[in-house]
């Protein structure tokens, strides 16, 4: 029972992380865009998600979507919510990474004749990625911890198992603390 939940936790965190990174990079690029509309849409997205708790977003999407007629499995809903939530934080991280690259790089590549996309792809993003890597690792740790909240929507992940066992005997909740603690050790290494 624990093993299945463990695997579930890792899968959902992993998949959400993957999509959140994509969302984050796109969002980061949008936030530095000169186009007012794109910039504002991205800003509104990031600010609204960062100002509301994950649990509220969970309730909103999990209870609200079926009301609109869209029904997903708990797995997919969980991925959607985690992706949207963490994507906002990753957007900020990516944006700060891109802005940390000195202007000379931009000037140099433009003077060579690269267009915006080539410059981003070959010069800016690789450097930004290296700068933001520590922050990204920290954020993925947060993602794994946040995935525990998904137990609320009955997804069989670690916390849910803990809940379930808790109704019969409480001690295993501690064994579960050790498990979560072990992940943090991984990140400290």
């Amino acid at each position, binding site marked *: 029972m624990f093993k299945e939940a463990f695997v579930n936790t890792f899968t959902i965190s992993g998949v959400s992380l993957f999509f959140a990174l994509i969302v984050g990079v796109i969002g980061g690029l949008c936030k530095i865009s000169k186009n007012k509309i794109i910039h504002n849409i991205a800003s509104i997205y990031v600010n609204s998600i960062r100002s509301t708790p994950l649990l509220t977003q969970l309730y909103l999407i999990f209870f609200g979507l079926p009301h609109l007629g869209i029904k997903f499995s708990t797995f997919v809903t969980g991925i959607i919510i985690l992706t949207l939530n963490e994507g906002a934080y990753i957007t900020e991280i990516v944006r700060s990474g891109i802005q940390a690259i000195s202007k000379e790089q931009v000037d140099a590549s433009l003077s060579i004749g690269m267009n915006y996309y080539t410059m981003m792809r070959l010069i800016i993003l690789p450097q930004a990625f290296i700068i933001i890597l520590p922050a990204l690792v920290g954020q993925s740790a947060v993602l794994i911890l946040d995935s525990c909240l998904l137990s609320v929507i009955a997804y069989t992940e670690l916390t849910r198992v803990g809940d379930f066992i808790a109704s019969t005997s409480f001690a295993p909740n501690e064994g579960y603390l050790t498990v979560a*603690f072990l992940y943090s050790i991984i990140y400290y290494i």
Partner: protein
Amino acid sequence: MKIIEILKDTIPFLLKGSVITIYLSLISGILAVIIGVIGGLCRKSRIFIIRWISSLYIRIFRGTPLLIQLYVAYFVLPFFGITFNVWQTSIGVLAFNGGAYVSEIVRAGIEAIPKEQTEAALSLGMTPFLKMRLIIMPQAIRIIIPPIVGTLILLVKGTSVTSLIGIFNLDKVGRELVVASFKNPLVIFSLVALFYFLICYPLYFFSTRIEKKLRLHYNSL
């Protein structure tokens, strides 16, 4: 017109829930900062045991989800004879959880002060305590205040998780309203989100303003 009815019925309850949320955030926030400063100083202590205990504390509270911490504090501790009610557990856990993050921030702030300051202070004959009080802390505080405001925002959002233990904060009120009335969940939860937004967004503004103010003083040195 249905939506206006929903608004009229639910907003009073949501306001009460927000008050609880704000109250919880304030108290745990203040405690978290206090615990965090102490924890951060302990982390830099020269006494091994103190350093070790504070490291352990920070690792535990940062490495586990808030929900698990709440569950353990509320459900597991009674087996060891320590019983708290929902208010005590949430304030306590939120304070210790936030305190762990603040400790790391304080530690990073202290470490950001160049070693030369420490050496100069010690060579002047200051005791370590005096050094901390007069030289290091005033400079470190300038560095650590913006991230601490960020942590406080996270704390406000953390209060929402306490709804799963039974505290009637904004989230729980929203959820009960939806369950009790079967009205449009989308509208009600959007209202909840809006209320949280109204609470947190000004904090973000506040933090950028503080950053600007602090940076001005830094430059004038």
